[in-house]
Every structure is written in structure tokens, then in C-alpha cells.
């Protein structure tokens, strides 16, 4: 049983337009503690705009978002304290090692740990030990994603937002990534994952939201996800409302 207190990511009647283009139109969503929500939609559907509003980089025209009860428009610093974010391309300092990147990004967030503890975090995300002190520019995309997750874990944020996290990963790396996401969810982190990867969405998500042309066109809970073929549901919505 969940209560309002369990809701970590809250999107209420969110609308945003850029000039004549309506990027988001009255979108409502919630992600609870320990829940993984997959946000699906074609390019231009409004996924990134939603994420930017959640991260406090974009002002909504109408509606509001809350992260652990804090509206980023009102208190961006506190809202971001509860938030971790992993983009499609995890942007690390290429000449620093994975460990140095983890230490730097964590200390910026005022996370104080010993070097051993930071190494333990990298071990937790299954980054090979020999890579800890190698410069990140020698890492594969999967390895960089792991460092990104380690940064998110170190921050102990209540909400994690992922933007196309498995794009470009090989199946094995994608699977490993998926395991890490599940681990975080079990630890109680609310996860919102914008993705095109329908397979991973069906495998990992506890709920799925489909956006098209800025509107939330469908929402599936865990039981519904188990009983439908996600791809056909997705395509039905996208074809029904062609993006022209």
C-alpha cells in the first residue's frame, strides 16, 4: 500500500509550449519510492521537456513538478539535492579516471567518503577494478554509465532520472545496467526512465507512460505491463496520432 508520502516524483497538469509548438499538454504523472516508471514516446513527444522541467532547467507554462515534495521553481537547490540524473551520454571528465570523476562529482554534492568507500561504490556497479584509475576516455559507454550510476548512488538521492540510458549499449551492458537500476529501485529510489528501448521498459519498469505530441496518451501499471505486448500498445498510440 502506498501513500502520498511515498510519491517522490510528482508531475501535475504540466504544460509547456515553445512558440506555436505545444511541447507538453496537461501531463500528470507520479513515481513512488522504489518504482521504475518508463516514459515512452517518439522523438519530439515531450520526454526531454518533462525531464528538463523536473531538473529545474525549464520553467513550465502551467502546472508544476515536485521532487520529494519540493518544487524546483521555488527551491531549485533543495529539489536538486533529492535528484540524481544520468543522461544518454554520461558526461565525465575524459582525462580523469573513473575514481577521480566519482570523487569529484560526489564531493561537489558534499558527499564525504573515504577512497576505499568510493572504490567500493565502483565495485558495487561492477566496474572492473583495473579501470578505476584509468582515464575515462579509455572507457566504453557501458563503463561510463556505471560511473554515472556510482555518482547517483553516492549522492543517495531519492529520485533518479534517466534519459535514454541504454541507448548504444550492447545487450550484455544493457542487462548489467538493468540489474543496477533494479538494485536502486529495491533500495527505495524512485526512477523515471525516458527510453525508446521497449524491451528494457517491459523488463524493468513497474509502470509505463506513453507520451505523444506532448500529451500523455496511455499509462500502464505493473499488472497491465505483464499482460500486454508493450510494442503493439506503443505502436497503436503512435500510429493513431501521427506526429506531423
Amino acid at each position, binding site marked *: 500500500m502506498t501513500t502520498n508520502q511515498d510519491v517522490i516524483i510528482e508531475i501535475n497538469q504540466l504544460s509547456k509550449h515553445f512558440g506555436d509548438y505545444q511541447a507538453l499538454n496537461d501531463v500528470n504523472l507520479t513515481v513512488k519510492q522504489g518504482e521504475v516508471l518508463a516514459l515512452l514516446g517518439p522523438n519530439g513527444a515531450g520526454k526531454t521537456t518533462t525531464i528538463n522541467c523536473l531538473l529545474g532547467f525549464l520553467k513550465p507554462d502551467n502546472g508544476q513538478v515536485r521532487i520529494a515534495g519540493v518544487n524546483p521553481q521555488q527551491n*531549485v537547490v533543495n529539489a536538486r539535492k533529492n535528484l540524481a*540524473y544520468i543522461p544518454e551520454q554520461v558526461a565525465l571528465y575524459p582525462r*580523469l579516471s573513473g575514481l577521480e570523476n566519482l570523487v569529484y562529482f560526489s564531493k561537489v554534492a558534499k558527499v564525504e567518503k573515504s577512497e576505499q568507500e568510493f572504490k567500493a561504490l565502483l565495485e558495487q556497479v561492477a566496474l572492473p577494478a583495473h579501470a578505476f584509475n584509468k582515464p575515462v576516455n579509455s572507457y566504453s559507454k557501458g563503463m561510463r554509465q556505471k560511473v554515472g550510476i556510482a555518482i547517483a548512488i553516492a549522492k543517495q538521492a531519492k529520485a533518479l532520472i534517466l534519459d535514454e540510458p541504454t541507448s548504444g549499449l550492447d545487450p550484455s551492458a544493457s542487462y548489467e545496467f538493468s540489474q543496477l537500476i533494479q538494485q536502486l529501485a529495491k533500495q527505495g529510489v524512485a526512477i523515471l526512465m525516458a527510453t525508446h528501448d521497449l524491451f528494457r521498459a517491459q523488463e524493468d519498469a513497474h509502470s509505463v507512460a506513453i507520451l505523444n505530441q506532448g500529451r500523455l496518451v496511455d499509462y500502464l501499471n505493473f499488472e497491465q505491463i505483464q499482460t500486454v505486448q508493450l510494442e503493439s500498445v506503443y505502436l497503436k498510440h503512435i500510429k493513431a496520432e501521427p506526429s506531423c
Partner: protein
Amino acid sequence: MNRLIITTELKNLWREKLTVAVLSITLIFAALSFYNGYQFSQAQHAVIDIAQQEQLSAIETAQNSLTQRLSEQGSIKWWEDIYDLRGQAFYLMVNYATKPPLATAPIAVGQADVFPYYFRMLISEKQNVVQQYDYVNPLQLLLGQFDLAFVVIYILPLLIIGLSYNALTQEQQTGQLRILLLQGINPQHLLKNQLLVRLSLVLVPFLLCSNSLLLLSNKDFTIQNSLIFSLIVSLYCLFWSYLAGFIVSKGKSTATNAAILVACWLAFVIIIPATLNTLNGAANPTPSRIHYVDSLREQADSAKKASEKTLAKFFQDHPELASTNDNPSDYATKKIATIIAIEQAMHAFDQAFLQIQDQQSQYAQAFKLLSPATLVYSALVDFSGNGLTRQQDFMQAVAQHHQALQQFYKTQIVAASQRGDFTPCRGCNARPTLKDLTVIPQFKNTVNDTSPPPWSLILLVLAIFALSLKTNQRVIQIGSAQSQEVRV
């Protein structure tokens, strides 16, 4: 937080080949440019030392040989005799006016390579001694000597631009800034510390290297000199660093930032000074030197032709020197009278040159405020003692010394002539009329002071402050929510 950002930035930059290249270039250029400036000032020192030695030696030789000279009965021509007033006055006097380089001279040669820094004085027309040089435009920055000032003005800004053009924007473009902002970083702190580290990578090695060399090479170069030099250079470099911050805070691409910053460098360091030079030259054209020389010859010919008339005029102007002697019109008195007549006739021409020089200087003083490069260059050249102000003081002192010598010989020669020391000519034999050479006026160097940093540098401080304010306003926007365009 600041320490964390600085150490990470240093670690990150240190692993980049460009940083090592910049450090190496800074150190090599600092050492080379110091060596060039030092060699120049040493060469001036050497020439001045020889001149002063020659002057002392001449007095000493005269003192030692006086007894022998007085015992000589053979005929010596007066123009070959160091004890003859006329020989000393017109041919043999060893009397120098010098402007020794200061301890700070290696910093900026400035226009010291075209300014006269020593004169061998003679009692000829002053136009032949002190008025024979044209000053080039004092704002002339192009084609300067490769000295520390050259490196400061031209090279250091480029190195600072080379390291700073991608501060913050690199993170903005690659996505690190987005994560850093979500981790709670203050973008103002990030940019400020990035600029500080990148500036330090250029400024600290340069100041360490150049100050060490200046302190080691000259015991007169004081800690105070070192601090003033460091202050001027730091202000200039801070200006470029803050300008880079101002440009990158606009959030354009790194390539655009680099292009804008190089355009700023071109404008401030090359185009504005060159334009100001041209304007100054056009507004205050120097009178024709050929015309001046022609006039000098013409006046000299006229004065010589009207020899008796010139002499009469001389005694009319100097009644205290006139006497009842029947034959004062010997060669030496006539020559002195002719010299003074030529000087008087040339006065108007000299004034025209001086007036133009003054106007050019006034324009230069005003124009230099339009570019940080000209402002700082002027401060460095003045501080090094090779600037126009010290040179003008020196030239004024030389003119006064010339006048003192002229007065001394005029009085002595006329008196000797009236006593009949030079008559009859007796085949132009010398007369020992000047037995103690120490009575000849010596040049007193009164222009040794180093100029303090000019108040106009406050303009640079104000510019830095304004850039800093505007940059902070822009950067704070980067992390906040935007209405239309996400900036990270």
C-alpha cells in the same frame, strides 16, 4: 568547494598536452625576452661606463701632464692643446651627458633604441647637439623589441585566451555542467576557479621566471620594483582572464568563444594602437627635418658671412663681457658669437618641433586610455625608465648642461680674449688658458627615478570589476530555469 574545483581543474589541465606547451612557452619567452632586454640595457651601460671613464681619464691626464705642458716651449696648435680654452671648447673637450638605464630597464626597451641616451658635449650650436633627433610616435607599439613588455602585451593574452576560451563552455557542451549543477555546484564558483587556475598557469611561471631573473641580474632591482612589475602584469592578465570569462559566460560554442577572443586581442593589441598611431601622426605631423637642416645651414652661413655684425650684436646682448680692449674680435669670440646667433635664429624652428612633440605626447596620453594594451605598455615603459617622460627630462637636462658649458666658455674665452691671451695669433699657437679641467661644468644626472604605476591603471581595475559583475549576472542564469531555451 573552491579547493576541490581548483585541484580537479589543475589535475585535468595538467594531463592536457596544451597546458604543458603553454607552460613551456611562457617560461621560454620570459627567459628569452628578459635576456634580450638585459642585453640591451647592458650594452647601454657599457657605452655609458666607457664615456664616463673617458671623461674622468681626460681630467686626470690633464692634471698629471700640466707641469710637463707648462715647461714645453715648442709650438702647439691651439686646437690640439687640451689646456687651451678654445681647443677644449670647440674640439677636445671630453664631457658627456648620459642617461644610464635603470635596474628596471630590461622590462621594456620601449623606444630607448631610438632615443639618444648619451651626448658628447661641445660648444657648437645646440641644434647640432640636442635637437637632431625625431621622436617616433610614442604610441608606436608595432615592431617593438622582444622584451618582457612585448611578451606581456602580445603573448600572455594569447596564452590566457588559449587556456580560457573553453572554460565552462566545455562542460556546457559536453554535459558535465548539467550534472555538476544537479550535484549542487555554483556555476559562478566553477567559472571563477577555472579562470583562476588557467590564469595562474600562465601568470605564475612568467612572474616567477622574470622576477627571479631581474632580481638576480641586478642588485639595484628591489623587491618593491618586483612588486610593482608584478602588479602591472597581473592587472593586465586579469583583464584578459575576466574578458575571457565575460565571453564564455554568453554560452556560445567554444569555437565562437575562441574567435571572439582572438578578435578582441586583435582589436586591443593591434588595431586600436595602430589606428591611434595613424590618427596621432595625421593630427600632429612632424615638421620636415630636411627643411630644418637646410635652415640651420642657411642661418650658419648668414651668421658667418656677417661676422663683424654678429660680433657687434653679441656684445650688444652681453654688455658685461664687452671691454675697452681694442681687438676683441679674435677667432674664438667670433665663433661663440656665431653659435649664439645661429641658436637664436633657429629658436622658432626648435619651438615648432617642441610644440609638435608636446601635442603628440598629449594625444598619446589621452589615446592610451582607449586600449588596455597601450595603457599597460605605457606603464611598463615608464616604469622601466625608457619612457618618453624620462627621456624628455633627460633632453631638458642636456640642454641645460649645454647652456651651462656655453656660459662657462663664453665668459672664459671672452675674458681671455680681452686680456689679450689669444693675440697676436702667432701662428695660432696654443696658450694654456685652462689649467684645471675640473672647473668645466659636469653633467649631473637628475633623471634616475622609476615612475610609479600610473593612476590610469585604475581604469583597468574598473574594467575588470565591470566585466566581473556582468559575467556573474550571466553565469547565474545558466543554472536557473529558463522560459524558452535550456542552456545546459
